[in-house]
């Protein structure tokens, strides 16, 4: 793996860089937050992202997408991370698109993928149920009912769940919580009877929802992928999600690091620029080194996704774990090195700290992945 961007990728990165810095900088997140925006993101921005090809970045060309692959998607996610851009990119363009293109029937693909690419639809993955990520722990049930299923139970941390036009719900069709087998995925209309969606405003001012399912009836063709074998489909979706969130965290933490270094060069204390203090220099240089490793980890995970490498799951888990740990360090060091102003809402560093907290938790924190990696490697 060279892990060096090719010309197309460099062009894409530059165009994404310009786009998000221009259309969706941190001030936009503040506006959405301070205006108590109902959706928490800008529909116009999402439409423009679709026009740029970002919404359909993983959608095959025959369904109207640009089909540029995960490296490209990661480069976009990184720029969004850098600007703390709120959008349904992760939920819809990454998770839903991956689920549909890999596991959808031709009818499901035709129904949803063109709309995803066009930015006309928002889809959300309803997987986690408690505080910690635990796919196998799924307790929501889908019981056979007529030609279809009845879904019951509770989901939490459904990213973009409050604005989704469709939910992809992981539910248990057999087995017990804790079993890898027996989970199936369903496409559910949140306007169905028995679905109750509560928006949850998170510490990063971004979007999530809790969703209750009370004997929600879905037809047989709502099943996405094979019955009882949803973990296979989910595996790829989660790899994609982990790689994308790692890429976003790379942008977020690198930007947090950059604004901190800039502050170190500007702020004076005791008659010196604080960047002159060696203790801070060494901590910043250590963090720089960690950031270099993070960049390689993210590129390796994205490359593996595109190559369908046999180590893809491992690399995505390692990248998510590494980014989770280092991003936390970048956030905490960032606030501390800013001193008092780092505690104020006026400076951006606190917003980075908050987004990092949320993103490092998504799809498994560093501990989760270390445990999984150790088990996968037989130790």
């Amino acid at each position: 793996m060279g892990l060096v961007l090719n010309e197309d990728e460099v062009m894409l990165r530059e165009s994404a860089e310009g786009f998000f810095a221009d259309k969706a900088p941190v001030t936009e997140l503040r506006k959405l937050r301070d205006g108590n925006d109902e959706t928490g993101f800008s529909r116009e921005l999402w439409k423009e992202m679709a026009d740029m090809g970002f919404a359909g970045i993983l959608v095959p060309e025959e369904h109207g997408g640009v089909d540029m692959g995960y490296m490209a998607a990661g480069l976009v996610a990184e720029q969004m991370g850098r600007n703390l851009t709120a959008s349904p990119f992760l939920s819809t363009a990454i998770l839903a698109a991956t689920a549909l293109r890999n596991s959808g029937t031709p009818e499901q693909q035709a129904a949803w993928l063109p709309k995803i690419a066009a930015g006309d639809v928002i889809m959300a993955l309803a997987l986690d149920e408690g505080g910690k990520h635990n796919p196998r722990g799924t307790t929501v049930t889908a019981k056979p009912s007529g030609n279809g299923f009845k879904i019951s139970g509770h989901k939490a941390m459904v990213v973009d769940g409050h604005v989704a036009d469709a939910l992809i719900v992981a539910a248990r069709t057999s087995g017990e919580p804790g079993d890898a087998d027996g989970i199936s995925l369903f496409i559910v209309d949140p306007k169905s009877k028995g679905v109750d969606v509560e928006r949850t405003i998170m510490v990063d001012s971004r979007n999530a929802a809790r969703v209750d399912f009370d004997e929600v009836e879905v037809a047989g063709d709502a099943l996405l992928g094979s019955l009882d074998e949803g973990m296979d489909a989910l595996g790829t979706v989660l790899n994609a999600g982990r790689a994308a969130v790692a890429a976003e965290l790379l942008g977020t933490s690198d930007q947090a690091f950059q604004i901190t270094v800039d502050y170190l060069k500007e702020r004076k204390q005791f008659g010196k620029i604080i960047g002159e203090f060696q203790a801070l220099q060494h901590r910043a240089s250590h963090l720089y080194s960690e950031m270099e490793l993070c960049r390689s980890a993210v590129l390796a995970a994205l490359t593996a996704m595109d190559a369908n490498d046999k180590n893809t799951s491992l690399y995505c888990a390692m990248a998510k774990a590494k980014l989770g740990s280092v991003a936390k360090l970048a956030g905490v060091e960032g606030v501390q090195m800013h001193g008092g102003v780092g505690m104020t809402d006026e400076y951006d560093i606190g917003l980075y700290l908050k987004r990092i907290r949320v993103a490092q938790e998504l799809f498994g924190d560093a501990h989760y992945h270390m445990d999984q990696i150790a088990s996968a490697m037989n130790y």
Partner: protein
Amino acid sequence: MGHLDDFRAETRAWLEENCPESMRTPFSNDGDACWGGRNWTFASDDQKIWLERCVAKGYTAPTWDEKYGGAGLDRAQERILRQEMKRINARLPLSSFGIWMLGPALLKFGSEEQKLKYLPPITRGEIRWCQGYSEPAAGSDLASLATKAEDKGDHFLVNGQKVWTSYADKADWIFCLVRTDNSGTKHQGISFVLFDMESEGVEARPIKLISGRSPFCETFFENVKVPKENLVGELGQGWTIAKYLLTHEREMIGEMEAPRPLSEVAAQTMGLVDGKLPDSLLRGKIAEAEIDDWAFKMTMGRLLSEAKAGMSLGAKSSMLKYYGTELNKRRLELMMDAAGQDGLEWESDRSNDGQLARSWLRTKGNSIEGGTSEVQLNIISKHILQLPGA
């Protein structure tokens, strides 16, 4: 020890009799504390009654002399009072920077007139004080402050700006460091003055924090007239007073006690599997933090005993400040880890308006306010390790 046993029995009986039931529960949020002051609205009748009864006994400032509104208790008695209050979970009757900070400074550096004038209203919760130390351009380098007080015969004319003034928007009076002389080193020429926040030319603007709360203000002084008798100590003695108070504050911040064991919170949040926290790495980090928490508490106890035995705490207060605040930051990071996605909610009732997340964010300031961790480490390097150039 008969005298102390008697005191314990009396105190226990008095508390049993006088502490209202609703005042026997821990503070559940910031709003439960009683800060007093001219514009104070009591949260409940019990809060008012409890304050009044304690004031009458001198229990809001138990070690102060009775003529200053205290109860004149010695250290041993005070400890008994604290123990007995803790036994029934009695709330602190009055939270007050006047008692915690200005009081000790006045007792040590103030004139008798000043003590008699200022201390009793403090103990009665009638005047709420704030502290005017930090300035925007100064930060950790407190002594480089620029707010100036010009000598105008019978008064000083104060001009300048403070920042991080806790609750300045709610305080009645301020104790404030000002520059009365520019000719010497930056530590010289600083004086310690008191004035009314209702004086003409004073304005306090709350600062919104990352936690979403605004406990601090930027405070502006434009031609504020401060009578000369409001100077505490000598002219130019302000830095000495400030250092005295900072050491005091550092110890207090270091002492902030963790309300519940981390492991208990984590077990409740995550549940146990086979009697263990399901995340074995988090379990280890929690055990590590609890060991450090124990060792830190033992250290506070030891240094306190040493101080009582006449050994000076000195720069060790910096060690307590440094370690205690960093440990508290770690503690809240681990609580957030345990809570996972549930801990990330910001506005729901379920999360008590994001209390955990806001507390987590709040702790990030622990290692900044009252002298950053870096400043504490500098102090240890210089005064304890005596490293060159520190």
